[in-house]
């Protein structure tokens, strides 16, 4: 292989992207508490993690919030994407698009603050949502992830040929049946991808959750964030490694799944 500048640039770029993460994985296996010395291989930080009740409870809360919010978000996102791609131009369509996409550019602090103001007002007025439950975080995360999910499904729907749907409608299928029998199976890979994306975004959020979460619904990122303020901690290395492994395996499997799906269709 001959020398090329582009290879040098790429390898430097990927070293920049991956070196910090590899460091985390290595030091999560270090026996010593300090980065300065490598005293030996050990899994003791992982054991410390499993016996830490705060982290375990926060993990369960986070997983619950992420799965519920991703599920609702994907349902709303599919509806919004169908409105945006399959409906003829209607009055206020530009406004609809703008409103759906606006949360993408909203700074997290502003979104957290404004939602908290709304929740406090609503609790005074209707007595719901109660801040001790995690419903406030779920609502906030749905609002935060809806635009990403809508964008993803919308791009998939736009690429799809809608003549099959039209043919089914011409042959007398009800719109609801067309959706469940034709559209839904065709966009299924994007729905899985969108769900995972919403799940990951929800699992990742610390700012909005810090604003809206009540005392009973501390999420995992909030726990990590508060321990990061104190500096390096080997337990966080261990959590980080677990999260990274799980997420990257999921993403790679998904990529292979979608790639195969595409190559089957193409051949």
């Amino acid at each position, binding site marked *: 292989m001959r020398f090329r500048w*582009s290879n040098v*640039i*790429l390898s430097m*770029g*990927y070293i*920049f*992207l*991956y070196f*910090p*993460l590899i*460091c*985390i994985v290595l030091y999560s296996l270090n026996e010593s508490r*300090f*980065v*300065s010395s490598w005293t030996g291989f050990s899994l003791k930080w992982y054991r410390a993690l499993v016996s830490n009740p705060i982290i375990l409870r926060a993990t369960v809360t986070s997983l619950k919030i992420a799965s519920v919010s991703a599920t609702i978000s994907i349902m*709303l*996102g599919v*509806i*919004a994407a169908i*409105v945006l791609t399959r*409906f003829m131009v209607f009055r206020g369509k530009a406004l*609809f698009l703008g*409103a*759906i996409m*606006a949360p993408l*550019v*909203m*700074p997290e*602090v*502003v979104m957290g*603050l*404004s*939602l908290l*103001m*709304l929740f*406090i*007002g609503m609790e005074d007025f209707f007595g719901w949502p109660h801040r001790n439950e995690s419903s406030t975080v779920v*609502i*906030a995360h*749905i*609002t935060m992830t*809806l635009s990403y999910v809508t964008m993803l499904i919308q791009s998939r729907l736009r690429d799809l040929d809608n003549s099959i749907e039209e043919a089914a409608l011409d042959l007398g299928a009800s719109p609801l049946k067309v959706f469940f029998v034709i559209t839904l199976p065709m966009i299924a890979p994007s729905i899985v991808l969108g769900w995972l994306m919403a799940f990951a975004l929800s*699992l*990742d959020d*610390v700012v909005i959750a810090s604003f809206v979460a009540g005392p009973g619904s501390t999420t995992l990122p909030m726990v*990590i*964030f508060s321990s*990061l*303020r104190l*500096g*390096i901690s080997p337990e966080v*290395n261990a959590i*980080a490694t677990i*999260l*990274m492994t799980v*997420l*990257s395996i999921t*993403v790679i499997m998904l*990529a292979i799944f979608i*790639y195969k799906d595409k190559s089957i269709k193409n051949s």
Partner: protein
Amino acid sequence: MYRIEERIISWFTELAAKVSGRHILVAIPFGWIFVFFICPCLILMKISFAEGLIASPPYTTLMDWLSGYLLQIRINLGNYALLFTDEMYIRGFATSVMIAGASTACCLLIGFPMAYAIARSPRRIRGILLMLVVLPFWTSFLIRVYAWIMLLSPCGFINSLLLKFHLIDAPLQLMNNSYAACMGIIYAYLPFMIFPLYGAIEKSDYSLMEAAYDLGCSPIKAFFSIVVPLASPGVYAGSALVFVPAIGEFVIPELLGGAQTLTVGRLVWNEFFQNMSWPTAAALSIILLIFVVLPIVLAQRSREVTI
């Protein structure tokens, strides 16, 4: 009486006939966004014109029914006046703009060569190379910031390496300054820059470059007069995608920037959680929103001009 009832019923049936499934489909997501996105923004705007109180909720109402038909409206511009007169807030905005601008420029400097190299690599490995760019993005955001704490902190990786080889005697202060905050932002948002750039460069026609070489153009001149102009939509989009989240960023300056790197995001947080001054926090957020919307409008404009 009978006729009125009949009319009401017919009015309802007409309405029901008009409201089809389509209306409901439009109403569900839009209603969600209206209640949980637009309403909170309006409430925030309302609170930014209120006065702070030591009560619950800690701000005054804008409208009061005095007696009978007398409606009193009090609008307090003091919160905004404070932001434009107090040096701390002005410096906060300046710090945010500077950090976001510098990180956007650095992302462009790192991202452009990478995107170019990926776009010019053999087609069969492009997908893998792009996936390698996104993969770190799927690991938690906090963890990517934490990775830099581990590298830069006084007892972190870089300092312990330098100490071990006796290149320095005392740990360098690499963290808790605005450079570290920039570093974190560059690392966290680099994929946002690479993707639009890759899209633009990949679409552009490589034969133009070959033609320029054949006609005796130097590679550097050909790069700047052909590749860069053709990639400009990607440059605008990528810059907006990095600048917009960077300017409102809270986590990175908080963890890497130290006490003196007070960005707007941190100011909003501190006003709310420490000073309990909701109206000031609301006013800061509204001004921050203007800083966010402005680059998007500019990017949109430049795209329209280039088209």
